[in-house]
């Protein structure tokens, strides 16, 4: 067992974990953060994507011990005071989800994408979310949602959206 200390969605946790435990297992099985899901076991589908110190990672490809001392942000930590993150809102507004299983990972990856490139073209969005598989939507409305969120998260867009974006893209859970 190894002792780890992490901040997940703004709360600090200390736990003893098996060295082989994956971050996604730690989130789901130990912290009850079942909003983050497992889709493939081979890091192809991206359903388990979370932010680790502000950057998107597939939490099936990170050991829990590697998250020691780090901040983790999951889909469950995106809302601020009951306000959806602009990306969550954009997924809803643009019907960018059907069964919703890929959605947590897709949203987390899309936020990361806009952190790197706030004004991506359609092709850049498609390439930016290439590591996240969706079987329901054909991706078209996901692309629309990311474009929509990008326009709303631009500096000068509404204050709520702007501040929400900055906090999360910066990886701050707290």
């Amino acid at each position, binding site marked *: 067992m190894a002792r780890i200390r992490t901040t997940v969605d703004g709360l600090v946790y200390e736990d003893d974990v098996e060295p082989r435990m994956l971050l996604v297992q730690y989130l789901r099985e130990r912290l009850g953060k*079942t909003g983050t899901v497992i889709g493939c076991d081979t890091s192809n589908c991206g359903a388990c994507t979370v932010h680790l110190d502000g950057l998107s990672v597939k939490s099936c490809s990170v050991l829990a011990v590697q998250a020691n001392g780090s901040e983790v942000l999951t889909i469950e930590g995106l809302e601020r005071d009951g306000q959806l993150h602009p990306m969550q809102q954009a997924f809803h507004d643009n019907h960018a*989800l059907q069964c919703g299983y890929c959605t947590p990972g897709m949203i987390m990856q899309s936020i990361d994408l806009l952190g790197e490139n706030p004004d991506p073209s359609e092709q850049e969005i498609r390439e930016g979310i290439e590591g996240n598989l969706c079987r329901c939507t054909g991706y078209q409305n996901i692309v629309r949602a990311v474009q929509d969120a990008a326009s709303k998260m631009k500096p000068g867009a509404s204050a709520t959206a702007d501040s929400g974006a900055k906090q999360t893209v910066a990886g701050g859970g707290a």
Partner: protein
Amino acid sequence: MTTTENAPTQEIGRDRRRKEDRRLITGRTRWTDNQALTGLLHISVVRSPFAHAEIKGIDTSAAKQVPGVVAVYTAADLGADQVQLPCAWPVTKDMKAPQRPALAGSRVNFAGEGVAVVVARSAAIAKDAAEQVEVDYDELEPVLDMEAALADGATLVHPEIGTNANAQWVFDSGEAGSGGSVAEALQKAESDDDQIIVKRRFRQQRLVPVFMEPRSTVVDPSGEQLVMWSSTQVPHILKTMLALTLGLPEHKIRVIAPDVGGGFGGKIAVAPEEVLTLLVAQKLGKPVKWTETRSESLLTAHHGRDQIQDLTMSVTKDGQITGLDVKLLADMGAYLGLVGPGVPILGAFMFNAIYKIPAYRFDCTNVFTTKTLTDAYRGAGRPEATFGIERLMDEAALELGMEPMEFRRKNWIKHEEFPYTTVSTLTYDTGNYEAATDQALQMFDYDGLRREQQERRQRGDVKQLGIGISTFTEMCGLAPSRVLGSLDYGAGGWETASIRMLPTGKAEVVVGVSPHGQGHETAFSQIVADQLGVPFDDVEILHGDTQSSYKGLDTYGSRSLAVGGIAVVKAAEKVIEKAKPIAAHMLEASEGDLEFSGGRFTVKGTDKGVGIQDIALAVFAAHDYPEGIEPDIDAHATFDPENFSFPHGTHLCAVEVDTETGFVQLYKYVCVDDVGNVINPLIVEGQVHGGLAQGIAQALFEEAAYDDQGTLLSGTLVDYTLPTAADLISFDTANTTTASTTNPLGVKGVGEAGTIASTPAVVNSVLDAIRHLGVKDIDMPTTPYRVWSAIQNASGHAGRADEANVASPGAGLGSTASDISRGDTQGGHL
């Protein structure tokens, strides 16, 4: 239908954002694997690495020593080898059905079949210990090729049934009286200088549904009712089948389908693992969970498609089809799934498609092999048929020297000819193929792209343009119960809904269909809001739990709206009917003087009225209501459709094919679909997008490939290549509308349309791009390697097929070696 045109807002037709999104975008989800119960145990299934083998012995002693392991069971320990998992569709009276156990007892019949199960405190411990189970196998010859499997002296998958043929199902329009004899039509064509005969063999590769949520089942045996949570499309069917299969009292079982992450047909099943989880939970008296890995899912969850299609069409030189003969071999895999044998049979009604074909024969033989079983996958039998006919239409047009759309136009049913009874005996109620096609051609700029194609040809561009057509219809909204009965299906096709009017005027609507991404909660709320004249937000849709929704036939076959949605309408009509005498009593008027609109009963010609929500409160109080009736306006309805629904559309695809690398790039995709009246255009568009992606994926990317030992080569998502966002483009979609006349909402199904239509459009476009180089056909998926090889072979270069990495994704070993020697397809096989 109760119209609410005078109501302030009409919900039907609005692009309402979905009610179900909030939980899904915030992570407050209830997937089966999220279920955590005190004392929960976990199981891992030990699976056969061999496709066909005798089990000589199983040593569980080492596994039992692993700390945290509670038990290790073989089939005999649980009686799992005595279980007969159900097949609900015996397609013929003499169908051969092998026993399908929950765990193999003495012989395994496909790689991945379970032979033992480990129960442990955690899933990780169970998996570790499963590695310690020693199984002694005696390998048998695998059975992989359908034609070889039917030959005399072939190794039998199930020696006890004496054959590898499951069933042969034949429809002949001459015998049915719905058309002429194909044998005569073809004979006549052979000796007729004014006719040609076009023969082709097409291959429908094996696919995997690949729902994003891996299957999971939790069973809690500790209460009065045994509770099963399962990631299933069919909680009601599952409950009844568990009772029938295991001899459990049906009223002692409760099945819950919580949030379900996609299905596409892949979760229409009574899975061995569901039964196994139940058996273990019963044996130990403890709650037990099974969650599959993705590899387990690809290996053992049922596959789809996998047919060899031999098609023969006779056609006059001026382009009139005179006969169509269809001969299919359909790979069932090692066992029969819940509806597996019926899947290819659904194609019998669809090969004639939108065309007027005077003589038609369909002859399908289902074949057992030592592969994972096949069953429903989005479209189920109809994509296969649509691919066959739409590819053949292009081939025939080519031989006739006719423009492919012109050839289709000459043969399709004209809009003024509806309702039209087809040669396969279905009656299409409505449609307008001309309207959808004209709009699609215009959106696509068909003539412009043909010009561009011509210019690229003339310039000899490396990237050649191809244009493909698919004009399709399909039968969905499964299904009229009497029709299912005539096809020997084991159940009906009705659907139920109940409406509970709560004291505060809110409505709980219990439905028998079971959504897993379709947006039922939103669409049905819109329907109820219009029917009852209550606010959209005052409606709650309850589903997926046999305790609240005790009766239903679940979700598949694009039936939820066209059947389940109509049950909702019927239930609402009953609520209004029951409320009417109470309204009359409250208004001191006669029932005959009342009219209902916008949620209110009003006395004709006055402004006196009472709202349905107020009546709900009045019957709750029940202080004052008419003599002789019950104080209750709740209602339950069952709707059995009189016909299928027949969505149709025109799909046009343009691709760029790099003639040096074989890479196919989607260039433009236009589809105009007629799905009848639309309840929610946003949801309809989403269904079309997703359907297109899956159909395009069959054409370009996906194949469940086996090696010559029967080992699945595409056992992870590294090898089974789903399209990513970067592989697809934005589609131009639109709708034309002819309302269905067989249901009160005028709706047709939409869930499968995109998948059914798109595959042949894409393959037709790929071939259209390189046919001038001498390429005649390419098997799916048309991977760069296959396209490149086809071009090389056609141009006289031998290519390097012998050096190919046959284990690469989409390399085509699912087609098996014997295909290679078969015919004139080029580049299709390695």
